[in-house]
């Protein structure tokens, strides 16, 4: 099966190792992965800040880069939701673009969704180690409705002990541009999230969105907590 990798600008710029882990995992389960090199950013920062024209420019570029028929897989619930839900809304008054947005949107999968529902990766029983807790990112759970898949993957790993954290679905305070506009609140929320993570006694916290993980990692760094922060795909790829 051929898939197109939508890496996301955060992974591309800050966490290339997450992109590499994604490719290794997809290949291990039989997919042929193409990374369209002209990809940039889905435009979410501009969308969330209210700049529709700017977002449309980014979206139009994305739609031309990802034209085709293969599934589009991304290691981010938030960016997947942007393309699936908000692109059609952006082009509501442009019939031709709207059709493209809907066609592309229907091909987009968040990675854990694709691994569980299409590639059945959880049946392989990958191995791992340690005690792991999971942060359920807002857009992944509430916009995309992906609640079970990351947990199915985690719990399928041999040697991994999963410990749920309190209020796993509460926002970590990242919120894209929110972290820049209201840093005091953003940091306070990240601190609260860090407390929930530490209370589990886990040695690793994982999630499926690098924006949130970046924010959580900062809060953990500040308190010098001996807890590793890893994208779910990194944990899975370590077991290959």
């Amino acid at each position, binding site marked *: 099966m051929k898939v197109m990798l939508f890496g996301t600008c955060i992974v591309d710029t800050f966490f290339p190792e997450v992109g590499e882990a994604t490719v290794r995992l997809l290949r291990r389960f039989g997919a042929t992965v193409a990374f369209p*090199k002209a990809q940039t950013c889905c435009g979410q920062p501009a969308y969330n*800040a209210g700049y529709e024209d700017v977002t449309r420019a980014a979206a139009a570029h994305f739609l031309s880069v990802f034209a085709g028929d293969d599934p589009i897989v991304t290691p981010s619930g938030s960016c997947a939701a942007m393309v699936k839900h908000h692109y059609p809304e952006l082009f509501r008054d442009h019939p031709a673009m709207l059709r493209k947005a809907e066609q592309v949107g229907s091909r987009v999968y968040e990675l854990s969704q694709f691994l569980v529902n299409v590639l059945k990766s959880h049946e392989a029983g990958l191995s791992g180690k340690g005690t792991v807790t999971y942060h359920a990112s807002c857009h992944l759970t*509430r916009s995309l409705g992906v609640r079970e898949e990351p947990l199915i993957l985690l719990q399928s790993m041999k040697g991994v002990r999963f410990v749920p954290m309190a209020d796993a679905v509460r926002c970590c305070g990242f919120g894209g541009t929110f972290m820049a506009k209201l840093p005091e609140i*953003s940091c306070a929320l990240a601190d609260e999230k860090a407390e929930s993570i530490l209370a589990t006694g886990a040695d690793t916290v994982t999630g499926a969105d690098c924006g949130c993980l970046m924010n959580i990692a900062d809060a953990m760094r500040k308190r010098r907590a001996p807890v590793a922060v890893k994208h779910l795909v990194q944990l899975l790829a370590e077991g290959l």
Partner: protein
Amino acid sequence: MSEIQTSLSFRSNAAKAVDDQVLRAAMRHAADTFGTKRSDAFAPVADAEALRDRASAIRDEVLDNLPTYVDRFAANAAKAGATVHRAPDAASAREIIAGILSGRGAKRIVKGKSMVSEEIHLNAYLERAGMEVVETDLGEFIIQLVGETPSHIIVPAIHKNRRQVGKLFSEKLGVPYTDDPQVLTKIARKAMREKFLSADAGISGANFAAADTGSLVLFTNEGNGRMVTTVPPLHIAILSIEKVIPTLSDLTAFIRLLPRSATGQTITSYVSVITGPRKPGDATGAQELHIVLLDNGRSQIRAGESREILKCIRCGACMNVCPVYRTVGGHAYGWIYPGPMGLILTNLLTGMAKSHPLVDASTLCGACVEVCPVRIPLVPIILQLRRRRVREGFSDPREIRGMALFGKAAASPGLFGLGQRLARLFWPFVRSVGGRDVVGRLPEPSRVPYRRRTT
């Protein structure tokens, strides 16, 4: 309070609130309690989603035909013997109410909880006219003693803990200090009883107004609502026009939804339905009932794209689950209504010029949308407001320039790659310009971004 907080200073209000550990602890405790109680209350409701659909459909119907239902309510309330007044704005509402009171020589007023009366700053106006106004909802009573505004729409003193209330009562009421909530409640009750019995008039709000019967409906817990509306000879109810529902039987949906969403109760201690003043043979009721229907910008909201906020039934569930609200409390929002519904209403009622920073007071996490009993698309409305801020020119000029550049880079892989290289190359500089608060929290860009690692 020593300084006036406005919506324009949301960030500094919020920064102060974040550092207030007493406030933070009180807010976390309250939000967690109400959040848990809400989900526990809905757990056994098998048809909860259908119930929300029905409530949402009723509120949509009202919104689509608001003038018709308001007229119908006014006509039927008048038929039941009430005097109905229409107030286009806050000033006219204040004048109408003060006029009714002074026309009857009323000096001593008891009040039930009403956010609309807060919105029009009624107490201060009546006090300037020489009247004594006593809030009788326990939370409102507490904040009236401090001289604060409510920090939550149904739990006005949510930001105070019992030790603060004990200290306040001993200072202001001259009673020995105690932080036992039961004793404190008894002290407040004793102070209020005297006021109820000697009051010339009672002022209340209303949760709903049934158009087909002209009835006012109040959901209350403390019993003060019944005292305010039935003990004094004169009862004035003030409510905003969108509180109307088509029929009294529509109430069945809201009786099940409102208390569960608000306090996690299956029903409030009291549900009062008031249809007209006391009639011959009635055991209780005010002799005279006036109803003030306030517009104050609602009709204008209804004509715009964010009209669905008028479906709100003021349960407060959205603020109880909001990560921003739980961190900063209600006062930081700078006006009357806090949390997700509050920032939207504040923005629409006070205008973009006075409140544009508030539209950033959301992480867009969507927890509010998940709990709203009438399915208001709160996050999409917040995004609408952000787009309007851009259109109306209230954005930071640096942000506008930054976004224009971002748009160019996002549409050009070459420019995007160049941006990545430059950010990496000049990261210490970017960090110093961007500041510890923002860029300081990001990791350094990777030496080799993913796009240059793959073939």
